[in-house]
């Protein structure tokens, strides 16, 4: 029952507070990812759970047991690093069975375990191969199998896909999640790749400067981020400053750009409040004159990524916004330099109080 519970965990490196009073519970069987910009403390946190780093303060429970004083080996975890750490002179089989052999298990005891692991990672046919004969993705799967053969029910994954090509990474996501769910493991996965976290996890924890900003199911984080930071870090968003001018039953009216007003569904702010309106580039439409919230501006650039066009538009006050548009087989009817209208439906707007330290500070990723 490897439920993980962190209570008031803090860790300081000199002046830097890497973990600042972190409280987090990972339920048994849950797949949780931690994301955040470089230096947010996510790696420190997973290393504290693994027992590689000792916290200055706080308690760590695994399966209800306080493990602060237990060594890594005694915590019952499987740990996988970004840098694939296989023994280069050993075959896949020998790498996978290394742990049991060191612990003194006989070949008869080890064999069924190893066969099961190979089956799980779909690598039975390559058990005699050496790491150098395998692709990066296959090597990393072998490392996962090696971590799991000890029958750990808690899997800690520290940027497990970070060293791999994007394409391989995408495919291994599915496999990793399947493995964790099929084996009924609990997994904690640290990544700098928010898309990876969103697609693989039951719950995503967003960290910033040593603290947990919020933790929620991926789709909730995406559609209803509770902070400007999360809206910006998870997915992409446009941010416009404004002042609330009117509140009605349907929502609030916000004065944004030189006389332009935007209708939002939120009723959280008061008239006169400074706010930030956020909306996702993919939740916009272009050139629909019937709609509310028409943002008029000049196209600065259009970047294509496959079927999606990413259109950057400069508004009258100099602010830039991005609209994403699925492209049909035809080219878009506008080009760089043209004036276009970007529409945002009130239901697709998010409204936040204007941050004390300014918007730029809130959006800074480094």
């Amino acid at each position, binding site marked *: 029952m490897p439920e993980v519970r962190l209570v008031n965990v803090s860790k300081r490196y000199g002046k830097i507070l890497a973990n600042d009073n972190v409280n987090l519970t990972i339920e048994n069987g849950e797949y949780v990812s931690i994301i955040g910009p470089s230096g947010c403390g996510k790696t420190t946190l997973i290393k504290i759970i693994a027992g590689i780093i000792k916290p200055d303060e706080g308690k760590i429970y695994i399966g209800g047991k306080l493990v602060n004083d237990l060594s890594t080996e005694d915590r019952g975890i499987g740990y996988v690093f970004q840098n694939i750490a296989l023994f280069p002179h050993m075959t896949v089989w020998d790498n996978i069975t290394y742990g049991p052999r060191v612990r003194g298990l006989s070949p008869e005891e080890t064999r069924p375990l190893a066969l099961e692991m190979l089956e799980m990672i779909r690598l039975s046919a390559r058990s005699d191969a050496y790491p150098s004969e395998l*692709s990066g993705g296959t090597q990393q799967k072998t490392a996962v199998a090696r971590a799991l053969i000890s029958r750990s029910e808690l899997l800690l994954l520290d940027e497990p896909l970070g060293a791999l090509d994007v394409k*391989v990474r995408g495919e291994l996501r599915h496999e990793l999640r399947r493995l964790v769910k099929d084996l009924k493991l609990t997994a904690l996965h640290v990544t700098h790749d928010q898309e990876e976290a969103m*697609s693989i996890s039951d719950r995503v924890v967003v960290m910033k400067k040593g603290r947990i900003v919020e933790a929620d199911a991926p789709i909730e984080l995406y559609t209803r981020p509770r902070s400007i930071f999360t809206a910006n870090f998870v997915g992409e968003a446009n941010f416009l400053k404004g002042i609330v001018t009117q509140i009605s039953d349907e929502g609030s009216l916000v004065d944004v750009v030189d006389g332009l007003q935007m209708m939002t569904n939120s009723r959280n702010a008061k008239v006169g409040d400074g706010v930030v309106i956020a909306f996702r580039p993919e939740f916009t439409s272009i050139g629909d004159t019937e709609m509310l919230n028409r943002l008029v501006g000049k196209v600065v650039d259009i*970047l*294509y*990524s*496959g079927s999606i066009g990413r259109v950057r538009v400069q508004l009258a006050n100099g602010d830039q916004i991005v609209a994403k548009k699925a492209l049909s087989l035809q080219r878009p009817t506008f080009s760089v330099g043209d004036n276009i209208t970007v529409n945002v439906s009130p239901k697709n707007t998010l409204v936040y109080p204007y941050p004390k330290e300014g918007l730029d500070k809130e959006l800074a*990723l480094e």
Partner: protein
Amino acid sequence: MSLIRLVNVTKKFGDITALDHVDLSIEDGEYVCVLGQTGAGKTTLLRVIAGLVEPDEGEIYIEGRLVNGIPPEERNAVYMFQQFALFPHMNVWQNVSFGPVIKDWDNETVEKVSSNILEMVRLADRKDAFPNELSGGMQQRVALARGIASGARILLLDEPLGALDARLRVDLRSQLRKLVKDQKLTAIHVTHDQEEALMIAERVAVLRKGRIEQMGSPREVYSRPQSIFVASFVGGANFIEGNISKVYSSGSSIEIRGGYQISVSDRSKEVGEKVVVAVRPEDISVGSAEVIGSNNFSGRIESKMFIGGSMEYTIRLENDDVVSCKISLSDLPTTYKTGERVIVSFLAERCYVFPYPKGGLLEEIEAI
């Protein structure tokens, strides 16, 4: 005249052919991305142009001049390593002005060039900081600034955004392109990230096993893939095996597993030919009723995954083929549950048809 031209360039390392008769022309001021998997030969290609590796065969021309045998510093091209190599004991300003200073430019020029470039990479206020005081993204921008300040007109960028956080990488894409364009430089940028290549480049060269498999604008490479590999590697697709059962004036029919038929607008193949149909996940819609004028198949949702603004459904069709469909959340009328029966639909003109590959389909599409 092309600024950079490679003619029939081959480079072997032992048994491995890193570059296999590569022909490539790059125009002055172009931003080109070389896209490929690990081991495709991307880095070797850059290093051959930089003069860090001599090819076994073939010629390299820069500005019309044959540069085989000419040392890197005389090629007007600067190679930027993936692991940004800043001088740790020098501050940002010293790192950036290093090139101009050793080139003995006058103080005023050094001052002007360096501060302009620092302004451009938005690090003017950090010019006194040492590398270890900066984030990875900032260090990378310093490295870029230093490369640009060297005065070279050609930037050879080896995974320039690879060491950065995913989110920061996305932000830096447009900055990088703008920087190159504003400075009227020419850039060759190597990456394994297809989205990065499609967004940033004016032309993309897809490299596979030392050969350029396709080269064209991002739109071309995405919307008219010339091979199964390109369709799979750039954008991704579902691949369905079948045989051409009929060719008519407006397209062909393909019989797939279970006797089902797919209509495609391609009519370049012959009846009986074994083929692979590719359909992109974003070109498939999911609904509860058939769409008139589309290919329609019924199936059951096996799993779903939420990926960056889209819901990706894995659906098992009645003939046991499995397809993935990507539905943008903004036009998602309903979400479907695992196990639910649905109809998947896609248009004939959104199907790519390729001859069945000699080495088998898996060989072409397997990345892992």
